[in-house]
């Protein structure tokens, strides 16, 4: 009856930012007067949003995944080498890439949980290993080419709608649904208080591994889209890990875990991409892009920290008597 959209804590600000950015785009960019412009934006943003969703799983459970950038590079380079321009190879190459991402995530997760190494260090080590291994294998320069049927996912479309946008929607819906399931909720709880989850009978290690596996898998998916969209280069994944973390934090997800929603993380990634598009349109040089990214990163976190503080004092003043009232109401009910 009095239905309100059920938004998780911290989702609203980033959605407002996103809407403001999208509306501004409509006024600034001539291409944004019709849906095609926004579809192009979504298409461009798809890899980052998918990476951010993957990163969200790890961050909300209290970890870090610094290996996704190098994983994307590795996957793209491997794809070019194996696909070798032949359409016949596309199917198994894609399966292999997804398997590769899954495996990298599995290794990250197992080392974090079994060997008790902090995820920051594990994924930093993985970053070095992947970077080195890929170039070792390719002798420093990526070789081979991507088959046209492989690139379809990043560039082609179903009628007007690009494939990557459909894949993006699929990923976000599946992720949102997953976070509402018992496993998803336990994942958030894990980031909040690992001991509580363990005492409540949650499979702590398995959940952590799952988060890393999802992150690896989604990074491989993002690599497939990015390879189609941008082509093969050895720099394709550079800095993507930090950009994905920025996006997640922009979405109000707290580093250290336990707070934040996956839809907000996706919206954060989209906002970031929309902001870069906007800066491009109004002629801010590409070099300043990272400076702007830095400023909004700090501003977003500072705003979130102060918002939390305000909310806490507000709760102490107002909600405490309110809770008493609720208890009384319950009593009346019974």
């Amino acid at each position: 009856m009095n239905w309100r959209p059920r938004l998780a804590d911290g989702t609203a600000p980033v959605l407002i930012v996103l809407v403001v950015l999208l509306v501004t785009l409509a006024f600034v960019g001539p291409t944004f007067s019709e849906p095609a412009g926004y579809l192009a934006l979504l298409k461009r943003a798809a890899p980052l949003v998918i990476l951010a969703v993957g990163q969200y799983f790890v961050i909300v459970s209290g970890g870090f995944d610094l290996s996704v950038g190098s994983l994307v590079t590795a996957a793209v380079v491997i794809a070019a080498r194996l696909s070798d321009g032949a359409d016949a190879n596309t199917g198994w190459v894609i399966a292999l890439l997804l398997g590769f991402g899954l495996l990298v995530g599995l290794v990250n997760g197992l080392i974090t949980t079994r060997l008790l190494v902090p995820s920051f260090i594990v994924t930093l080590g993985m970053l070095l290993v992947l970077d080195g291994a890929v170039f070792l294998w390719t002798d420093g320069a990526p070789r081979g080419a991507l088959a046209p049927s492989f690139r379809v996912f990043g560039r082609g479309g179903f009628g007007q709608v690009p494939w990557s946008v459909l894949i993006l929607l699929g990923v976000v819906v599946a992720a949102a649904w997953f976070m509402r399931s018992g496993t998803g909720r336990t994942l958030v709880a894990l980031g909040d208080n690992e001991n509580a989850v363990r005492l409540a009978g949650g499979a702590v290690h398995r959940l952590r591994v799952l988060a890393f596996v999802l992150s690896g898998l989604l990074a491989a998916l993002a690599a497939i889209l990015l390879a189609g969209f941008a082509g093969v280069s050895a720099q394709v994944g550079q800095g993507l890990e930090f950009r994905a973390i920025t996006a997640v934090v922009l979405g109000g997800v707290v580093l250290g875990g336990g707070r934040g929603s996956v839809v907000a993380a996706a919206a954060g990634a989209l906002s970031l991409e929309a902001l870069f598009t906007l800066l491009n349109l109004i002629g801010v040089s590409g070099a300043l892009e990272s400076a702007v990214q830095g400023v909004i990163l700090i501003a977003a976190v500072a705003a979130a920290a102060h918002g939390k503080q305000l909310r806490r004092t507000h709760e102490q003043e107002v909600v405490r008597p309110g809770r008493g009232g609720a208890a009384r109401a319950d009593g009346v009910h019974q």
Partner: protein
Amino acid sequence: MTLVRRRLTITPTVTVYLALAALLVIGSILVGANGGVLLDQSGILNILTRSTLLGLVAIGQTMVIVTGSLDLSVAYLAGLCSLVTAETMAGRTSMMVPGVLLALAVAAVVGLINGLVITVLKANAFIATLGVALILRGYLEHNYTGPAGSVPRAFQHLGYDRIGPVPVSALLVLLIGTAVWWFSRRTRTGYHLYAVGGDTEVARLSGVRTSRTIVTAHVLCASMAGLAGVLLAARLGSGAPYAGTDAGYDLESIAAAVLGGAVLTGGRGGVVGTIGGVLILATLDTVFDDLAVDPFLKDVVRGVVLVAAVALYARHRLSRRSS
């Protein structure tokens, strides 16, 4: 007796130097089998030269990690400070001292900003310093495309002179390392660093000004990165905007500190261990160069060594706790 022995066998600082010794022995044998000598004059010079700049950055990084913080801005900061040094000097001998002082002042201000963003704006250290790093990067990319400025020949002596196989700059770093060791282990503020890293809330309740301590650590760390930038300028002859990031000072310095036994949640680690970690990384590089191994294999080995070391420390700590 048993107490002393256990302490000797268990601390990561001892482990890291044992590992370094083992690496030097194994490396010497491998290089020897290949017909070379690892630890001759040029080999030692090579290891020490590689260690100098990363060593400086890592010493500073250790101080922030000990307080439970992190600094991802050091790489760009080193690049920026090399530019400040070289452009202020612009080849004039008379501007040497102002150039160095200005670079250190810029670094200290950046460190102050890092510290204030973390303590006043209450941003997570990872995010705060990543943000500052991105701002510095934007500034560098916007204003510089390549090397700029130049330092006078007299100043380049700092980068190249050596006493026997030991570079003067390595001695300088050793001196600074000793000073920072003394500061962190023998002074009140130094103890506060460890207290804040161990448990911020307990430190606060014990009367430590936690915010001030964190800011101090960040200013110290940034100054070290700034000094690394100054040495970079002395070595290269001009300011190099991306020399710091190309060498990966941000993540490498964290790796070195962690190799040396620092724990990212704070409260553990020290300058001595970190220098051991830096020497291990430099020795690995030198051995690989002497063996003419593919440079990319270095990264792979580095990653494996890092994870293995931390896993080893975690196991030690666990077994010590259960015993």
